[in-house]
């Protein structure tokens, strides 16, 4: 293999690597209100997948009072949205009241909060840039 091929191969490998699974998305939840239950979180790649409810990855972490941190691994570059809830009673469901309002804590990436309704996708977008090893996003927990 000559030098040129080596470089090309390296670049090609690098691109493949970037285009498949490379980066981490670090998520920080500002304020979980108890140690009970767990946090169920999903990450979506792009608006269509968010709206059709097809997550790229899901994670379950034990809830702890105060700030909580976890990460989604091996995400390719692109636009993401995270949604999560605090399953305080461990029934694996986001409980709601009779009118569909969540009665357990919930939140979205980029600290998106709805105003008289759910937040908009564009407000929860977090971008993983090409070549980046990680991206950070914060979630404001709404109880």
């Amino acid at each position: 293999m000559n030098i040129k091929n080596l470089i090309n191969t390296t670049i090609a490998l690098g691109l493949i690597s970037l285009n498949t699974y490379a980066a981490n998305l670090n998520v920080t939840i500002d304020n979980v209100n108890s140690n009970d239950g767990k946090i169920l979180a999903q990450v979506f790649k792009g608006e269509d997948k968010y709206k059709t409810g097809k997550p790229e990855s899901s994670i379950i972490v034990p809830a702890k009072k105060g700030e909580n941190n976890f990460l989604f691994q091996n995400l390719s570059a692109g636009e993401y949205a995270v949604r999560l809830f605090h399953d305080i009673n461990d029934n694996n469901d986001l409980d709601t009241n009779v009118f569909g309002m969540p009665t357990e804590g919930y939140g979205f990436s980029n600290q998106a909060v709805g105003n008289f309704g759910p937040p908009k996708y564009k407000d929860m977008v977090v971008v993983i840039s090409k070549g980046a090893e990680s991206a950070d996003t914060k979630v404001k927990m709404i109880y």
Partner: protein
Amino acid sequence: MNRREFIQSLAVLGITASHLPTALLANNNKTWKQKYDAAIKSDPRLIGHQNYTQERQAESLVIEGEFPKDFSGTFYRNGPALLERDGVRQKHLFDGDGMIHAFKFENGKVSFINKFVQTHKYKKEQKAERFLYDFSGLGLKNTESVSSADSINMANTNVLPVGNEIWALWEAGSAYGMHPETLETKGTITLNAQLKGAPFSAHPKIDADGTIWNFGLDYASGQVIIYKLNSKGGMQKFGIVKTDYHAMLHDFLITDKHILLVLPSLKVNPKGKGFAAQQQFDENRSMRVLVVDKSDFSLKATHEFPACFLFHFGNAWEEKDGTIRFDGCRYPNLEVLHRMENIMQGDTYLMKDTISQTVIFTIYPDGKTKQEAFAGSAEFPRIYPSLTGKRNEKVFTIGDTKDAQWADSIRSMSIESGKIDQYVYGEDYLVEEHVLVEKPEQKSGYLIGTALNWKKQQTCVSLFDAENIKSGPLARAWLPFHIPLGFHGNFKVV
């Protein structure tokens, strides 16, 4: 005044077109607060809507006359008090943070305490020393999002003794539980997990057996939740009634068999800035009465009346043949709601459309309907509590004999004969809701209520013989200061 007037349609009322006060138009570059501050200098009656932040206590109020020794209990009232923060004045009277006022009667003496309801909104804004939620176009910067109705719950409309607590009520979110003596806020009332954060109106109705009925409208879906609670506030049952109504729904009624959801002729303009501004009168929309079965919450019938608006109802009952009758304080349109923005900026310009009058609505078994209006202005209707859902002869209201801005008088009126028993406080007084404290023998008792004397800048609480109002108060207790004009209250007998 004693003549009973029969009015078949609203057209007979001769509704006048509303018109904008010119003074306001010329004054548009001033802030809401500047306008109010300027106006109160020339019209001291506006003290009733002044920003109020003082939590106070007063022992042994100065008493005129004599409170009966056996008259014992606490008169609770609620209303918007905190109207300004950081130089910003709320636009609508409904947007002030709720304050509970408690007058305690014991051995002929009267004491007083008042406290803010420590709502999520109040606590957060108190800490920030500014308004954080801009839901009515105040033009605030760095605001917080409104993620649920309870995030802006002001708990400012009514207060109801329930079991060992008092509940401060709003209409779009949860009730707040408070200690009946100290007025310390305990937190939101969650009746069960499915009802957390659900709307719980400010006008519960209580059956003779103590059962508490209430409703709450989910504006988005148009679904109305019906609550049936025991006398201690424990959930017995709830159900949903589906409607296509999404606008303001303030009050409701019960009979012995049914729940009446009365949907006034309102529609929503989503472009309006704030809840009140979004509410629009729709003269082409009938007022509808949904008759809901108390036993299973099923919708039995829907009846229509000519377009009108009402905040409040006195009572409903059913006759043996199934005829339903109820009374309410009817407005020809919704100007009264929008006028509360004018008052908040100190404009006391008067419009005839903001006068309400007692109307008896009748629904016959064949579905035909009738309205009968009674002369004189009337609002805040109350009845003897034991007659809720049963035939009542009298309805007790406040009203004004001179102009329509503030009430100056109280009255009872026989809805059978039209006979009126009235007491006029006089022009120095801004009269608030008066409620009945029934004697055990029923259909007799006391009428109690507050009034703000704007000349003295003091609020008084007065007790009347409910069967002889015209003789004037049996006794009156004076606070050494004034409290803001509020909305509704209730008396807890001890």
